[in-house]
């Protein structure tokens, strides 16, 4: 076992990058047993590891399968550490994103990667899943008091469902309240502009940069 906190954080980060679920579980439990601050362990261990995995993805050393297994290790650690967060850390208001694949499409790997990377960057994410009607994005954004609605599709046939979400917000006079961002295979910056979305990203890491920008946090 690592000799000190710094080594433990590094080992936990390495376990995420190394896709090692067992090691992540062991180290997260070790942190709890030693009474190391849960928030710091998440930030400097799990989140750091997922950030490194994201960099490997951007440089095409990792692909979607590796990134998914890294996130499996991260979530195992998170499940162990979250119950030990101090009340003020657990309850702090975080920038909130409602995300989903629009109606008529069930391709959700891209959306899942964006959710994973957003969570790993400290955002609060409500994942509605796939094949989601426009009205549900709007209703959930209202009830959850979200900041951003993130829409994904891989199909050219369902791109119009993205415009429908924007139209519904317009019709309900809610357009100013939420930022709408879009992404997925057939989506282009020009399309995003045409449907009056607030942003477009072509990859999960860039989606995180976009949300950070909208939230006013330094990238």
């Amino acid at each position, binding site marked *: 076992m690592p000799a000190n906190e710094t080594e433990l954080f590094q080992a936990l980060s390495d376990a995420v990058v190394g896709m090692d679920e067992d090691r992540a579980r062991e180290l997260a439990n070790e942190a709890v047993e030693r009474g190391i601050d849960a928030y710091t362990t998440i930030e400097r261990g799990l989140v750091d590891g997922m950030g490194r995995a994201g960099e490997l993805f951007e440089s095409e050393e990792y692909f*979607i*399968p*590796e990134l998914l297994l890294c996130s499996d290790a991260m979530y195992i650690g998170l499940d162990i550490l979250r119950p030990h967060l101090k009340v003020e850390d657990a309850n702090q208001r975080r920038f909130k994103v409602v995300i989903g694949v629009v109606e008529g499409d*069930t391709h959700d790997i891209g959306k899942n990667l964006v959710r994973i990377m957003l969570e790993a960057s400290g955002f609060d994410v409500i994942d509605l899943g796939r094949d989601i009607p426009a009205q549900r994005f709007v209703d959930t954004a209202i009830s959850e008091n979200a900041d951003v609605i993130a829409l994904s599709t891989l199909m*050219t046939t369902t791109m119009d469902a993205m415009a429908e979400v924007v139209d519904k917000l317009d019709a309900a006079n809610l357009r100013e309240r939420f930022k709408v961002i879009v992404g997925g295979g057939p989506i282009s910056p020009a399309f995003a502009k045409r449907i009056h979305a607030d942003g477009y990203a072509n990859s999960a890491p860039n989606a995180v940069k976009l949300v950070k920008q909208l939230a006013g946090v330094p990238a």
Partner: protein
Amino acid sequence: MSHDLMTPVQRFAAYGRGEAIDRLPCVPIVGNTAARIVGAKVSDFRGDGKLIADAQVAAYQRFGYDVIRIFTDLYTQAEAMGARVHYPDDETAYLAAPAIDSVEQIATLEPADPHKDGNLPVHLEAMSRAVDAVGKEVVVTGALTGPFTTASFLIGTETLVRLMLKNPAAVHQLCEIALQGAFDYAKAILDTGSTPSLTDAMCSTTVISPRQFREFGQPYLTRLVEFIHGHGRSVTLHICGKTRSIWEQMCETGADCLSIDNAADLGEAKAMVGHRVRLMGNVSPSETMLDGTPSQVREAVRECVRKAHDNPKGLIIASGCSLPVETPFANIDAMLDAVREIGWPVHIEHEMETAWKA
């Protein structure tokens, strides 16, 4: 617009022999857009081989492109092996649920019977009818989904890609079953007088790594290409999204033509593999064909021609992937018209070029 002087069959034959042709071959990849030609709903294609054939033949006759492809969606083979497919009223179908959800269930799967299971018999009927109607003048192809992609629909994509790292033997077991199904379906397609046209969407390096393609995609594609070659037909292989780092491997499957997505560059493909394979591509289906103007389509065609008209093994001007259902007819016409204007040997008038850009 000037009329074509050759039929597609004559054009491909002459092009293959290096003889004079009237224009470059051109294939806007029309799938469910064909429903719009005959005033049908996309869901009407389900279970109706005659309607699919009528629509595809009508679309071919309307636009005058060079290959008929019998295709509605990529799920046909997986559906025939138990995957659940949802058919919206008037849009392209999508996967509702994979056939199985655990490794233990792989043993329960069986290769589909192309003459009995799911919508495979319907698609075969459509191919037969299209061949009967126009097979003398144009090649009819039948969409054949690659084993790795079918495997992803059988067990779910996320499960499959996790298994590649955790239980590779299970992935191979699944791909092998998908391959056996693909052999049987390919044989049935060939028996209709059509040519299987291979798509392996999930092999894209947008999803998996080149190393994973070499282990889980390429071997099965190679066996499928060999099988089709054994029946005297050439093979076009399409992989969606990014593919640059697997072009060499795609060539190693033995495929005769690579269909390149607009996420990749035709000029780079020519430089890397153009001496080994014919290239097909790659006007953007959504940004240009669906959302662009006819003049933007023409310019995109010119760009493809500029980049790869001198490809040693030849070039087919095409969309980078299947066209969206609602692609305007004017844009499909513009693609063909641009290819006719450019002619053969290719000639791109400079002042027209600048006019389009202005």
